[in-house]
């Protein structure tokens, strides 16, 4: 495969079968390897789409400053594109995100503003919105509400999956901005009768939630529950266990949020087996495990790793 530049090589990622984790010949599980994007995560797609839409709309001109609340991957993708296209990037991220992410962001030239750990991504969003109001000349692409986010998956991720696996019955992905599920979900629903769109959301320990007021729950503007068939809530322990299972049985070294998506995929697989239905279940490997090495997710016993992960954002 040949491309004119790194940016042109976004997408067209492999879809690989998981013969050992699939329960039977009739119920198969497939991994969409989004870590094979230029900066190593699925976020290269929405980042590129959002920047190019803003350019088309005349909001972004060379020399402009982009501001974005992000716990890492979107920031890294934006930093790469911003560097190549000549924009300054400021990321607002919770202080409890892994050190690798910060180093990567700085490496590509992004500036980082930390938001308090207690509020998680919700607090990062609030801080970024405040900064945007104070600096009207900055451009906030705002992945949680930017339609170019879900359109990137409607126009690229979704069509790739259907082309590679016309018999697809389920799509499972992590629920963050909701862009992946909304985009791929809408695309598949228009073309595959009865397709099941399944969200896997992280269930953090009470250290992360402790100081939050449940009434202040933040729902991304992109979220439309009607696109989803069902939602899984996955504990840190289960996400870690599945991440390790994926590595030990199928050789795929993925980040912890991928373990959560796999947990949902295996849950749907069990239901399909019980119901005697055939299934081709695609789940998203959002990124590789590299950026999580310092969290200790892959070392020692599961209990030790879970303890180390307590209080950290892993998706």
């Amino acid at each position, binding site marked *: 495969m040949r491309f004119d530049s790194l940016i042109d090589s976004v997408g067209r990622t492999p879809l690989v079968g998981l013969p050992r984790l699939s329960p039977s010949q009739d119920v198969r599980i497939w991994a969409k390897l989004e870590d094979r994007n230029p900066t190593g995560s699925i976020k290269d797609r929405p980042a590129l789409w959002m920047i190019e839409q803003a350019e088309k709309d005349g909001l972004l001109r060379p020399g402009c400053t982009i501001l974005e609340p992000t716990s890492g991957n979107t920031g890294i993708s934006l930093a790469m594109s911003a560097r190549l296209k000549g924009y300054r990037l400021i990321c607002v991220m919770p202080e409890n995100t892994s050190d690798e992410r910060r180093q990567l962001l700085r490496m590509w030239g992004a500036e980082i503003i930390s938001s308090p750990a207690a509020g998680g991504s919700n607090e990062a969003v609030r801080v970024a919105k405040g900064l945007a109001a104070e600096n009207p000349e900055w451009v906030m692409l705002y992945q949680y509400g930017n339609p170019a986010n879900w359109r990137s998956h409607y126009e690229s991720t979704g069509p790739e999956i259907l082309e590679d696996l016309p018999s697809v019955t389920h799509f499972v992905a992590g629920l963050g901005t909701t862009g992946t599920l909304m985009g791929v979900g809408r695309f598949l629903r228009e073309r595959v009768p009865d397709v099941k769109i399944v969200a896997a959301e992280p269930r953090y320990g009470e250290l992360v939630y402790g100081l939050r007021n449940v009434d202040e729950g933040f729902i991304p503007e992109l979220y439309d529950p009607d696109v989803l068939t069902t*939602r899984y809530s996955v504990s840190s322990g289960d996400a870690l266990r599945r991440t390790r299972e994926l590595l030990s049985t199928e050789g795929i070294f993925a980040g912890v949020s991928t373990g959560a998506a796999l947990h949902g995929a295996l849950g749907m697989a069990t239901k399909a087996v019980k119901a005697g239905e055939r299934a081709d279940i695609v789940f998203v490997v959002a990124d590789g495990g590299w950026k999580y090495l310092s969290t200790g997710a892959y070392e020692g016993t599961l209990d030790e790793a879970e303890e180390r992960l307590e209080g950290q954002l892993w998706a």
Partner: protein
Amino acid sequence: MAIEVRIPTILRTFTDGAKAVDAKGATLEELIGDLDSRHPGLKDRLVDKGALRRFVNVYLNDEDVRFLGGLETPVADGDTVTVLPAVAGGSR
């Protein structure tokens, strides 16, 4: 075999501090009724006017029961039910 129900910290005052308790029933509604018979007051914290309270999430084997069948969701021996205070949110 029974159904394991995991209780969030905020509701453990009803279960003498227990993180998980066993309960019986064919549907989530029956299960909550059975729970309430041994841990009085718990049902009122979960259910309001015949539906799950807005800021309570209940998961059957980690799946949100609001997408399954709400209080009418069938449950069976060996299942795990998790009760959590609702916190929506993006994380990317």
